[in-house]
């Protein structure tokens, strides 16, 4: 991580910088030369179609680039005897069991949850398990997706001054509203044997004192919600009844035609005498313009791209297995796929948090609740719990189909 930053900084120092005194667009938190402003600023906003065309093409990170640390290592036959193999495995487990966690000095000082300026909490990295049906107190069925949070730890925190946004937002639109305000937290999931990875990759986790993780993500957070590296994250980081944004890579369908990809209707079957027109797109041009418009929908690769679903409600939390029950069956991705979960950024859902009523900030620490034990299962208010008696729906008032007769009409009828 540090090496990556160094290469980035050296490259940018060679470029001409703006005259800092004259620019009024810099935030007040700029700290000397470490803050590198954007030299190319677009005045007009891009239209929706322009944005779509820019970021429609899937950009893949170049793994041979020297910015990235080489990850996979080992894998060759080291010709170790079977006794030594088990011995080495035990050594690996022991080192991490006895390793001094950075948390022995206690966590960092907790920030305060503020509404103005806005507070952004960390997210969590989970694994999609599958779907189940649940019922609400009115007897209506809905589907929930179970997401399990296995082995999450905070790996690294970089303060806002050390971040250059332009290098991080290469494959998606630049978030200029966050520029300079947010720090970056790296969260890892699923601890692994360090012998599978290179020394460089294992070095990323030394500061945190955790085994190397299979999957890493980054979350942008405000500095008041910074967490010390090495802190574990649990499912109780969220509360039941809160709303959550979910981001994952959708199912890869491969190269698909226009009917499956965009839902085109295609043509009739051979039964009606249709000649060579069953699943085609049809015309690709319009009569006048002598070109194919960019963005024309054609066959191509479908799926396998980051999809964000906003405003999913958390119905239940299982604290024993660290499982969240999220609203809806259509959380993106295949089974056992990675999912990023964060507090919802929808306007109405952000308003629900106040200075007194907010989720555990900056995260849930088990030591806070040592006096009373945590329930194994937590429920939202409106969900039907299966250990409650049957729903009789007696308290539901049903409006009559016909409107009640007015006094004038009854008088008329009497006549």
């Amino acid at each position, binding site marked *: 991580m540090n090496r990556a930053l160094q290469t980035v900084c050296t490259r940018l120092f060679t470029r001409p910088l703006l005259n800092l005194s004259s620019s009024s667009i810099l935030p007040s938190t700029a700290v000397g030369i470490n803050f590198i402003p954007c030299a190319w600023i677009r005045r007009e906003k891009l239209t929706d179609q322009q944005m779509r065309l820019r970021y429609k093409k899937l950009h893949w990170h170049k793994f041979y680039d020297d910015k990235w640390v080489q990850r996979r290592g080992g894998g060759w036959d080291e010709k170790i005897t079977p006794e030594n193999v088990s011995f080495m495995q035990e050594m*690996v*487990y022991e080192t*991490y*069991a006895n390793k001094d*966690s950075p*948390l022995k000095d206690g966590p960092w000082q907790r920030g305060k949850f503020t509404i103005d300026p806005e507070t952004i909490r960390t997210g969590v990295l989970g*694994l999609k*398990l*599958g779907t*189940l*049906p649940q*019922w609400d107190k009115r*007897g209506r*069925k809905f589907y929930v997706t*179970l997401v*399990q949070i*296995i*082995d*999450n*730890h905070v790996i690294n925190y970089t303060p806002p001054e050390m971040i250059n946004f332009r290098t991080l937002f290469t494959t998606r639109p630049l978030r200029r509203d966050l520029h300079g305000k947010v720090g970056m937290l790296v969260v890892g999931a*699923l*601890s*692994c044997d360090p012998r599978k990875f290179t020394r460089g990759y294992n070095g990323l986790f030394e500061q945190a004192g*955790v085994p190397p993780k*299979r*999957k890493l993500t980054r979350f942008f957070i405000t500095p008041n919600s910074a967490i010390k590296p090495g*802190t*574990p*994250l*649990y499912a109780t980081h969220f509360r039941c009844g809160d709303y959550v944004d979910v981001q*994952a*890579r959708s199912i*890869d*369908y*491969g190269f698909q035609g226009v009917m*499956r990809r965009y839902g085109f209707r295609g043509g009739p079957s051979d039964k009606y005498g249709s000649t060579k027109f069953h699943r085609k797109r049809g015309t690709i041009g319009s009569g006048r313009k002598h070109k194919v418009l960019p963005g024309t929908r054609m066959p191509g690769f479908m799926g*396998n791209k980051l999809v964000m679903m906003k405003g999913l409600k958390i119905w239940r939390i*299982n604290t*024993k*297995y*660290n*499982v969240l029950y999220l609203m809806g069956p259509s959380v993106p*991705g*295949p*089974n*056992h*796929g*990675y999912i990023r979960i964060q507090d919802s950024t929808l306007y109405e859902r952000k308003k629900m948090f106040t200075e007194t009523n907010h989720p555990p900030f900056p995260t849930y620490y088990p030591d806070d609740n040592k006096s009373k034990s945590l329930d194994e299962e937590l429920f939202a208010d409106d969900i039907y*719990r*299966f*250990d*409650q*008696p*049957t*729903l*009789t*729906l*007696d308290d*539901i008032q*049903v409006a009559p189909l016909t409107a009640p007769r007015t006094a004038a009409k009854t008088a008329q009828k009497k006549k």
Partner: protein
Amino acid sequence: MALSFSTTNKFLLNNQQILRSVLILSVRYKQRGHIADHLVEHHRQSPLGKLKNGAAVDAFPPKDDTTKDLRTTPHDFKYVYPDFLPNPIPYLRDRILEKLERKDMFRRRQQIDIPEFYVGSILAVTSADPYAPNRRHRFVGICIQRERHGLKHQFTLRNIVDGLGVEISYELYNPTITKIEVLKLERRLDENLAYLRDAPPEYCTFPFDMEPVKLPPGAGVPLNTIQVPITSTHWQYKWERHDLKGILLPSLPRSVRKAAERFGEPWRQWDIMRQYRTEIHDDDKAEIYEDIEKHKEDLAQYRIDSKENVKITRARPKAAGRKAILDNSNRSNMSTSK
């Protein structure tokens, strides 16, 4: 080609279904951004997850590798509890998902007595309905099919009401179902009785005030070997093509019979993989049956506790009289005849 073997509508296997299942299979094995299935359990149980301050993985009890005596698990409990069968699509299965699902199922079974029944049994289901008189809706019918696994398990009841065939599909674990009574417990020769739609109406007409038929204690589930004639001219599905034992087919033209032979897939009797998929695997059998046994003990204890806590105040009702009973029966008849 391994198609989905859930029992949903085996009679209608059109091109769309085949293409979709082929797509799902072809697509499954080239996914990115996910962890391999065999590694999920490895991570849940690995000691690397159990750190001093981590404890994120502390609560995953490792699966008991000790070989359990499978002779104690009855070989036919998959027929008694078909909702506990696992998902027929293997890559949609997950151990923790199934465990949490089973927990909910057992909790529901403590609230309501879900009896043992089979396809061909006659049931009476009472469910809470805010739009019905007395806020209860009672339906009697013969069980045509039982579909899906787990909390989604459904069963369909068929009856003919006022000359009109009515089928109602109930979810077994729906919390608005107040009572499930088995009026007649029996089995039929087939697992799916959708052919009753094309049968004469007397084969699926059952009175709503039917008295429950009591079996002698210790008796097995009786098998009704009735052969239902299929008389209507237009059949919903091509019944001659499916190996249905409980029907009496009329004389068919030669071309139809030949097509049925071709479609019949006579090699299926040697399809071991298909049989394998309809069974509960030995690895899961012991775990599921253990949970069922524990549930039975819990249920017995729950019933004892609830009886102790509840004060039974037996108040003899006022002389209701014959008129009240007649009114009640009239009201129930009116509600069901719709």
